């Protein structure tokens, strides 16, 4: 075969536009493989080659397949004549091919640039997000009715692209929440003490060991569930997951409530197993960090004096019990004024859901950071 044109470039470029985190290396790698004769037996083989090189999880495959199918003309030109003819129909779905067939007729690179873009989010942002595909797919599948036909589930993919903080970033941010102390069995070599021991004894007999430094930070999450928070459940789940699994935090507790923690806090998202608020609060150690996640009325721009007073009372009790607490609000902070959120933000450091916001919340939980009473310009 000849390579005077740029095979598969339209496909590659379209994938990039759709948010696949691909670079020039990845394209050249595919060329190298194709030149060596890989993936040339039929369309399926070429499909598998590109899939191996350009996707990183199973969740990406649906989207990859759809884009691949739109570029069949281009794909077939890479294949040697004979097999291209006979195998051509295999992958082609019932869908008509899209307008880039026309573009593919021309060999110049430039003509392939104005391909349709399916992503609304900027490319830079998306490259990070592609990582969390698997979780998103699972969530999407759980959300779909179990018997939903395949065609529907492959057409719509819920990506955490809507979330301003990715799971990986979240885990990283959680790591800033740490208070170290040495506990547990002595397993780590204490160099200084060993040297002192050697100089005292005149001979090295055995190393001095000490316990490993571990993170003693305890974090408790209190999540508003249901109602106006429904769109943010995916984020709540990721917040819980990242705190429990990735952040190396100590004994995290997770509680749920609806609108305001009035009498009960629940241990499950469906809010079936309730515990009295006083009981939960009285069991919190003083150095526990409490992060509350709720829109505090900002999502619907509601202003309820009852809700404000309930939360104020709750926060008073909470602050008597623990030293560090913060509030994370899924709505951007310019949407708070006029809603209950703006009032509540005066009782507790409240941050919007964004990367700097989450970072701010974590530093508040570490006992550092802003003088929050005048955190925002609109406050006074």
């Amino acid at each position, binding site marked *: 075969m000849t390579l005077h044109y740029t095979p598969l470039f339209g496909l590659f470029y379209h994938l990039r536009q759709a948010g696949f985190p691909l670079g020039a290396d990845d394209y050249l*790698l595919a060329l190298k493989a194709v030149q*060596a004769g890989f993936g040339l037996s039929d369309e399926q083989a070429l499909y598998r080659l590109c899939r191996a090189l350009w996707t*990183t999880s199973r969740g990406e495959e649906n989207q990859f397949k759809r884009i691949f199918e739109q570029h069949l003309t281009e794909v077939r030109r890479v294949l040697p004549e004979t097999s291209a003819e006979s195998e051509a129909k295999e992958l082609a779905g019932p869908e008509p091919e899209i307008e880039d067939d026309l573009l593919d007729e021309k060999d110049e690179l430039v003509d392939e640039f104005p391909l349709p873009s399916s992503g609304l989010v900027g490319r830079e942002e998306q490259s990070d997000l592609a990582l969390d595909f698997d*979780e998103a797919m699972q969530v999407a*599948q759980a959300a779909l009715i179990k018997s939903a036909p395949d065609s529907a589930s492959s057409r719509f993919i819920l990506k955490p692209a809507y979330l301003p903080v990715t799971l990986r970033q979240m885990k990283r941010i959680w790591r800033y929440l740490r208070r170290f102390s040495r506990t547990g069995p002595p397993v780590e070599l204490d160099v200084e003490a*060993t040297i002192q021991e050697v100089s005292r004894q005149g001979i*090295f007999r055995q190393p001095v060991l000490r316990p490993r430094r571990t993170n003693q930070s305890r974090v408790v999450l209190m999540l508003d569930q249901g109602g106006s928070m429904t769109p943010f459940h995916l984020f709540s789940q990721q917040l819980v997951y990242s705190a429990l699994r990735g952040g190396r935090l100590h004994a995290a507790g997770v509680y749920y409530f609806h609108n305001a923690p009035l009498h009960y806090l629940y241990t499950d998202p469906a809010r079936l197993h309730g515990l009295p608020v006083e009981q939960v609060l009285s069991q919190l150690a003083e150095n526990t960090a409490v992060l509350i996640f709720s829109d505090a009325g900002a999502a619907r721009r509601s202003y309820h004096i009852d809700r404000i007073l309930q939360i104020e009372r709750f926060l008073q009790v909470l602050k008597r019990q623990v030293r560090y607490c913060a509030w994370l609000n899924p709505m951007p902070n310019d949407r708070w004024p006029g809603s209950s959120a703006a009032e509540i933000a005066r009782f507790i450091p409240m941050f919007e859901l964004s990367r700097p916001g989450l970072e701010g919340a974590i530093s508040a939980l570490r006992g550092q950071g802003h003088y929050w009473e005048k955190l925002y310009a609109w406050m006074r």
Partner: protein
Amino acid sequence: MTQLLNYTGQKQPNETETLPPYLPASELVEAVNLAIYLERPLLLRGEPGCGKTRLAEMVAFELGLPYFAWHIQSTSRAKDGFYTYDAVRRLHDVQLVAAKLNSALNPERPEDYLKFGPLGQAFLSEQRPVVLIDEIDKADIDFPNDLLLALDENRFIIDETGVEVHAQQKPIVFITSNDEKELPDAFLRRCLFFYIDFPGEEHLLKIVKAHLPDSPAELVLAAINRFVRLRDIMRKDKGEAGKKVSTSELLDWLWALLRDPEAMEKLEGPLPYAETLLKTRIDLQYRQLIERTQP
């Protein structure tokens, strides 16, 4: 040199060897050869028990290459795969020599206190080595990134001696992941990706025949049939993400069935030896449902 290596997946260990047989799908064989040619690590994902871990060993077996396995634990550090350095023993030896208790030791040679890990050994191998990094997602989230430089440039530095070790031959790297933690983007980009699908009924039959060549065909067919239906029910109920019965569990189950002279009759009734297939409380609740899969 590199083009000559071609994995076929056909060569199986004979009875004198301890390795069990392994039958990869043709797509997987294709991906292995692509990874060998492009000199990129092959990242394998798939359900537990689908044969991710065994592939590397079988590739090494067929191609006659040295095989190094590194099973990752949650405390594994990237450096441990290359080498560990026993500073305490060196200090200990210095004392013994100074006190003239043992003159055979020479603690002035730091290289005596080095121990190479699986990757370090692979780098020293004269032949092209096959390396398995098993369950990479168990380690810390920064672990894969720490491996990148070494895998990209095929070298690592021993800090204690200042020696830079270069790979004699570019290793063929297989990495398995159970998706417990998501892997960093930069790392994923350098890997080829392959998802090992659950084998179809025909392929299952081949696998079973390879493992249990003397088993009665009638029983194997009936068992696979029952197994596939059980799996379908589990998939429908739990979705793609849930834990389903795997190939390795099928083999365990067949072992149990083969020893039972009445296995054929039992397969007609309630699921026999269910404990080899259903292992969680939820699965056991499925039993009721599963009973309905009786022929």
